[in-house]
């Protein structure tokens, strides 16, 4: 059970590095939402239910939606 936390921490760092590494914004945003999903599970592990729910809803849901709409506006303009 304890290894789950280390595994998740490892994935967390990998996903964050991926989010920063890729040039294309869409990929990095997807990795960002992956990071926030991993974080939600981590928060559950750390017995912080409220924060997990908030992180899930805002990190995975809202942030991704807003980033995607920003990128679509920018891509729309440059087309």
């Amino acid at each position, binding site marked *: 059970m304890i290894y789950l936390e*280390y595994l998740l921490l490892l994935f967390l760092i990998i996903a*964050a590095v991926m989010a*920063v590494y890729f040039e294309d914004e869409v990929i990095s945003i997807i990795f960002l939402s992956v990071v926030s999903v991993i974080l939600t599970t981590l928060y559950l592990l750390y*017995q912080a*239910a409220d924060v997990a729910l908030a992180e899930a809803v805002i990190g995975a849901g809202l942030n991704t939606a*807003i980033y995607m709409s920003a990128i679509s506006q920018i891509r729309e303009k440059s087309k």
Partner: protein
Amino acid sequence: MLHHLVFTVLFLLGLYTVIYKNNLIKMVIGLNIMEIAVFFWVIAVSDTGKSVPIYHLNKFAASFNDPVPQALTLTGIIIGASTTALLLTFIIELNKFADTIDSNKLEGLNE
């Protein structure tokens, strides 16, 4: 000790992206990663292995995790979300005038 390590890695990763990446959206993502790092660190440190600070109907256990940092992080996450949304609107607006989001090409930012 592990949590501090993860916090430092994520925080500096975010700081590096904000400073040295020249794509504005990447900088906002970097900012987001910095915030995520801080909130993760707060919760990780405040977790003392006790149960979630909610009274389950069946048991009135007395040993709870510390609810205060959780409340603070919750507020922090929401503030982080609204600042990211605001920053992204400025980038959209800037894109209407400068049609590039590369911070090197935008001379105005250096001024």
